């Protein structure tokens, strides 16, 4: 029996996937598929790597890894600089970022940010988005103060009054502060202001054009199996939470469960199937980045993404 097991192992194709962060509910489809052995069924031996300071897209572009979770605002400039990266699925259909603040600060809409301090990671994209939001809502972007984020624990920043608002992900930080820690927080969700700012894919799953060309069957197997995992996560959020907790027991279980439930709906908010990308979203975002002078060079947007490896059924 052990002989056949060894033989089976030998036939599996090794695949490396680099996360964009520590394991979290954005990755639960991946972990669910892993836990259920679906990758082995598809002939894959999947290794998951946490990135720390390494960028998954660099690893994919240089062939060090096969897949990476990354974001559109990283993928496009990297492509413009010549990196071989292609998005094969979006993890969440819409951008679920938002600006989080304590309810006492009364930040209900973008123009309320006037005179407030935004805790900034220091990227150009942040400045551009905040300014666009405030200006679009009739405020003066110049009145928003940008102050550096000292800690990625927003509870400290907000309660110690180091800043008034920060850019967070609803599926994780908002749930943590609002539902788990019971802080009275407001969110200003980007998806409510898509008339002012573009939507974009964050996070997404990327591979390289080389991989697509050389081993399309592996890409196909991985993406469709991952889609199966996310499909199951949408069906059974508590199984998704269990899978994630098993893989990363350091996580806070309450947060993971609430987040999994929240995301079950958001993975594919409007379409039925997980992962599908829309040309318009990519084009608009690329154009906006170029206008804001965040993107220099040509990322060849139409080659930057594909839906072709997602299951047909959708």
């Amino acid at each position, binding site marked *: 029996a052990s002989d056949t097991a060894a033989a089976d192992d030998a036939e599996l194709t090794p695949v490396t996937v680099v996360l964009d962060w*520590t*394991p979290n509910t954005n990755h639960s489809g991946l972990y669910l598929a892993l836990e259920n052995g679906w990758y082995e069924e598809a002939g894959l031996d999947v290794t998951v790597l946490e990135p720390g300071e390494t960028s998954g897209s660099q690893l994919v572009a240089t062939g060090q890894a096969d897949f990476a979770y990354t974001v559109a605002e990283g993928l496009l400039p990297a492509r413009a600089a010549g990196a071989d990266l292609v998005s094969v699925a979006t993890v969440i259909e819409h951008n679920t970022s938002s600006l989080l603040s304590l309810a006492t600060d009364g930040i209900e809409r973008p123009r309320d940010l006037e005179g407030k301090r935004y805790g900034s990671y220091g990227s150009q994209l942040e400045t551009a988005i905040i300014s666009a939001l405030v200006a679009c809502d009739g405020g003066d972007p110049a009145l928003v103060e940008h102050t550096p984020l000292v800690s990625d*624990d927003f509870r400290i920043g907000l309660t*110690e009054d180091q800043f008034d608002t920060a850019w967070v992900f609803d599926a994780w930080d908002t749930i943590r502060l609002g539902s788990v820690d019971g802080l009275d927080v407001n969110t200003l969700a980007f998806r409510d202001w898509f008339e002012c700012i573009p939507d974009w894919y964050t996070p997404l799953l990327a591979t390289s054009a080389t991989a697509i060309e050389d081993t399309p069957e592996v890409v196909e197997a991985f993406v469709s199996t991952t889609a199966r995992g996310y499909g199951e996560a949408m069906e059974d959020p508590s199984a998704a939470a269990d899978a994630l907790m098993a893989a990363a027991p350091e*996580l806070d279980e309450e*947060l993971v469960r609430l987040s999994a439930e929240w995301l079950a709906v958001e993975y594919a908010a409007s379409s039925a199937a997980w992962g599908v990308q829309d040309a318009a979203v990519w084009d608009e975002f690329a154009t906006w980045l170029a206008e804001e002078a965040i993107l220099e060079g040509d990322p060849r947007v139409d080659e930057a993404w594909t839906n072709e490896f997602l299951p047909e059924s959708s």
Partner: protein
Amino acid sequence: MSTRARAALVSLTTVAVLVAAWETAVRVGDVAPFILPAPSQVLVTAVEQASLLGPHVATTSLEAVLGLALGAVVGWLLAVLTATVPVTGHAAHPVVLLSQTVPTIVLAPLMTLWAGFGLTSKVILVALTVFFPVLIAASAAIRDVDAEHADMVAGLGGTRRHQLWLVRLPASVPGALAGLRIAATYAIGAAVVSEYLAGQSGLGVYIQRSRKAYAVDQIFVGIALIAILSGLMVLAIVALRRSLTPWQAAMAAASTP
């Protein structure tokens, strides 16, 4: 009571006092647990997660010990090489400086490019941190050697190699050990940082996951473990020093009022 026992007692007392003060501060003052959890809570978490922590601690310790050994050997050999063939020292200079100033964030991707994600890249990163204090301290000690001793060897027909072997190297041992003591303090921390690189296990991964999950008590468990492991490394080096410099133990200056 021996001097060493007294020293240990004083150190432990400090730790106890600090922990007590911390506990009091958290309980009496109203420090939010997400800013500073109480040590008792940290301890509870540590006990709860003991089985989870085991493998992380093992990974980090292995990386640190291997990296420290590699770095110490490389640093000392480089110091010796520099002393023997000064031109190699001058040539290595800028590279050594770069190795210490290029941030890990930049080094990390390059490192994974040719050393992969496994143990190797982490051991190399630890060694990269560790070799430098050893190199500098040993070099200084080799350079500052007593001319009297070097001349004695030369006067007996000894070559430069004999001078190096009989005088410069032994004379550099206390200095190199001071460097190694610095290095040992950094080793665990360097291993933790190297795990940020791209890892699957280790205290770096544990802390990173805890941070992202807002589990502050777990972060403090991680820090406490880093400090304890570092302390053990340092104690090992101190013991090494005792056994490598027996003549110093046998020397003691008089102090008279």
